[in-house]
Every structure is written in C-alpha cells, then in structure tokens.
C-alpha cells in the first residue's frame, strides 16, 4: 500500500488500462461461473464454488473500482474486518440448523 502512496497524488490512481484489465477478469470469471452452472454438481459444492468465485470478483471491485486499495490502510481495516465478523455471526446462527435439516432429509 505504501509503494502506491508515493504515486498517489490525491485521487485518480489507476489507469484506463488497469481498469480494462480488471474488467476483463470480472467478465472472464462471470463466464466461468455460467459454465460451472451447467456442470452437474451437488448443490452444496456448487454454491460453495460460486460464492468463492464471487468473493474474488467482489474483492476486485472493492480494491480497484471502489478504490479501497489506494485509500489509507486504516479505512480498509475499519470497514472490512467488522463486516466479515458480522457476516460470520449471521452464519453461526443460520447454518447449524440448516445442516441438521439436510441430514434429516437424506436419511
């Protein structure tokens, strides 16, 4: 982050070429997700793979399009870890029940 700081003269960090590269990656990952949608996978595995790929896309958008990579580290540390913590808290409350339900169904 600090090596970019020397280049950053305020705001407009990132060239058109960089934005285009990120965009092509986003479209490519989307294409791969659509391909994956037609594979006959178990729903649980499918959902895990799709969410993992979407997290990569989300990280690209947040870092480059939303500029967070070039902001002060303190901003990213204030925003991202608490969000992840809160999502984990939601997960903890929902998923034990859902897995139990799955086991009951398969028996």
């Amino acid at each position: 982050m600090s090596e970019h700081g020397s280049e950053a003269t305020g705001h407009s960090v990132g060239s058109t070429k960089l934005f285009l590269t990120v965009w092509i990656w986003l479209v490519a990952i989307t294409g791969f997700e659509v391909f994956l949608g037609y594979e006959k996978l178990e729903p649980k595995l499918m959902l895990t793979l799709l969410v993992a790929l979407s997290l990569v896309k989300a990280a690209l958008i947040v870092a480059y399009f939303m500029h967070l990579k070039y902001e002060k580290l303190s901003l990213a540390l204030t925003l991202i870890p608490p969000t992840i913590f809160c999502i984990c808290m939601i997960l903890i409350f929902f998923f034990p029940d859902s897995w139990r339900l799955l086991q009951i169904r398969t028996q």
Partner: protein
Amino acid sequence: MHETKTDVAVASSPWSGGTAPFAVNSKKLGMWLFIVSDTLTFSAMLLVYSWVRLSNPDWPRPFEIYPAIVKSTIMTVVLLFSSLTMVLGVAAAHKNDRSKAMRYLLLTALGGLAFVVLHTTEWINLFHEGYKPWSTPEGVPLFGATFFGITGLHMLHVTTGVIYLIVMALGYGNGKFTADDVEVSGLYWHFVDLVWMFVFPMIYLMSIKL
C-alpha cells in the same frame, strides 16, 4: 504545571480532533458506512436464501438457457460495463474534464436503465410461466418469495442508482457538485454491481434447468 503538560500532550495527539484519520472526506466515509450496513442486509437475505435452497431437494429449476440465462448473463455484463464507464467517469472528473465525466455518467445511467428494462421483461416472463412471489407451479412458494424478494431489493437499488447518477451528471455538469461527489456516487454504483455479482450466481446459476 503537570496539568498543562498533559493538555499539550492531548492536544497534539491524533485523538484530539482536527486530523482526518481515514484521510477521506465525510461524504465518502458516510457512503462507505452505508455500504457496510447494506452489505449486511443483502448478506442476511442471501444466507437465508442459501439455507432454504440447500435444505430443499425439490427446489424449482425454472431457468432455461433462453431467455433466462442468456438474458441474465447479458444483464451481468451490462452492469459490469456500467461499472467500467463509472470508474472512467470518476477518473475524468478528477482530471476536471467536465463534459467527458458527464458523458460517462450518463452512459453509466443508461447501462443501469438497460439492466432494469431487461430484468423487468425477465420478471414478466417468469410471471407468465406461473412463478409469482407467493406461489410456483411446483408448489414451492419459498422460491418465489426469495427470488422476487432479493432481486426486487436489488432492482430498487439499481433504480435508485440510475436516478442518483442522472442527478449527479446534471449537477456536476452545471457545477453544483464536485469531483469528490461524483466519486461517492461511483462507490454506490459499484456496490450495486457487487451485489449482483452474488445474486446472479447464487439465484440464477443455482437453479438452471438441466
């Protein structure tokens, strides 16, 4: 004497105010905090959806390759493209190129509008096939509730974003808003794009008709 020494120490510390710990303006910080809270709203909805989706072996798979998957893939690319024009618009605004920034902002709004139109035709199509927010032909009303609930909330965000961008483009064009304001509207727009990056695979690609 001791007291004044402490006062001096407090006054020079970052906690005494007058410094910007995040080095961003307050509007930008405000938008980021809104985005965090909205992230949690969508996370809760998508997690509940995942829960009912995985625990229901008879979940409907209504999305045929045409029109649903082709259309939703085009919608995804359109939304991604509008994010690209947004980021170029923000870059132009920071270079003080007002007319170029305005054109990019309006192009972004146009992308959003195309998304709304495509998604509406997709909804109407599903309605005709019998998928409604309260019932489905397979008798799984949860599908309708989660599908229309989540895509509906996202559509509300896109519609709001299109209005926001048009207001921003016009206001920036006549000097009412600054380049920093354009950047804040960009944050919102990228967030709307980011949410769709989860909605599209989790809802559409998980229920393709095989």
